[in-house]
């Protein structure tokens, strides 16, 4: 009589390892502590699959029913908790994806734009005062891409400016070919750290510029050095800033040429 009970107990113990602790505690009860009625009910409901509602008389049965409903309550509580955790996880993933446009909106609203360290205020040009005792030499450099046939050069090799003063400089470009050529340029400022103080009011870069055959034009650059340049300790030893423009050819449907090869 006792042996099948012990075997049953072992079987139950191994299969119910995932159940909640209260149920486990119930299982740990010695067979003698539980009523025969309870064991029989559980045995039948598990192996035969019948939902046999026994007569609910007696203290032990009531205790079992209470624990059964408590078990259900725990199960539902667990489910809710798991749902909340899963929702939080999905929410975190969604937030990480949404952070990109949100950050962009924030930058637009706050005006930082992600790149400004020294404030690039357009109204600053009106109110800034030149720092007359700090003279900086600006040297100019002009480059073209290997396949770009324009003659592009600066019209002055250097110019002396002070921070806070707007300055004008000229480049010249000539198209020696017989076909109109569209060029687009970009620029570079050396030293890199000084580049953040180099503000261009207007120039000829980043937009397509078209030159007719045999045409020569002057290209101005209107710029200023931010007055805060003088207050930056890292810039204390910077006397020369080099502005370098590079022209590339822009054509519709153009495939990038191999570097080092030029073609007509």
């Amino acid at each position, binding site marked *: 009589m006792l042996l099948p009970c012990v075997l049953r107990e072992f079987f139950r113990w191994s299969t119910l390892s995932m159940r909640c602790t209260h149920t486990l505690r119930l299982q740990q009860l010695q067979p003698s502590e539980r009523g025969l009625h309870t064991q029989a009910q559980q045995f039948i409901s598990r192996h035969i699959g019948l939902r046999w509602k026994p007569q609910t008389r007696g203290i032990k049965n009531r205790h079992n029913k209470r624990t059964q409903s408590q078990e259900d309550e725990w199960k539902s509580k667990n489910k809710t908790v798991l749902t909340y955790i899963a929702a939080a996880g999905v929410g975190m993933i969604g937030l990480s994806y949404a952070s990109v446009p949100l950050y962009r909106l924030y930058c637009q609203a706050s005006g930082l734009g992600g*790149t400004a360290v020294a404030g*690039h205020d*357009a*109204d600053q*040009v*009106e109110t*800034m005062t*030149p720092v*007359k005792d700090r003279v900086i030499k600006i040297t100019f450099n002009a480059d073209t891409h290997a396949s770009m046939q324009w003659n592009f050069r600066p*019209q*002055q*090799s*250097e*110019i*002396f*400016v*002070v921070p806070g*003063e*707007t*300055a*004008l400089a*000229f480049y010249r470009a000539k198209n020696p070919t017989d076909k109109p050529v569209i060029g687009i340029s*970009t*620029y*570079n*400022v*050396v030293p*890199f*750290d000084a*580049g953040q103080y180099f*503000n*261009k*009011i*207007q*120039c*000829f*870069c*980043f*937009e397509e*510029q*078209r*030159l*007719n055959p045999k*045409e020569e*034009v*002057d*290209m*101005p650059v*209107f710029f*200023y050095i931010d007055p805060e340049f003088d207050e930056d300790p890292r810039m204390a030893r910077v006397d020369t800033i080099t502005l370098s423009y*590079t022209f590339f050819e822009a054509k519709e449907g153009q495939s990038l040429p191999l570097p080092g090869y030029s073609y007509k």
Partner: protein
Amino acid sequence: MSTAMNFSSKAFTPRPPDKGSFPLDHFGECKGFKDTFMKCLRDNSFDNSKCRLQSKDYLQCRMDNQLMAKEPLEKLGFGDLKETSPSQEDKE
């Protein structure tokens, strides 16, 4: 162009100009003003402070010939030149 080798120092990011791009002066309408400016620069050993009047004239020419958006001169940093145009050269 900025190379990929700048690991420690800050890489340079080109910024677009504040007021956009100058349209090209295909007809050379302001070439005279430009030549005056360049001559002034060469005479004053490329000191920009001494040639601000000429640069103001050049930009004024551009605005007059619709090669540049019209702006009050203060916004271009020439506020001090507006009041004292002939005496500016004497001061410098």
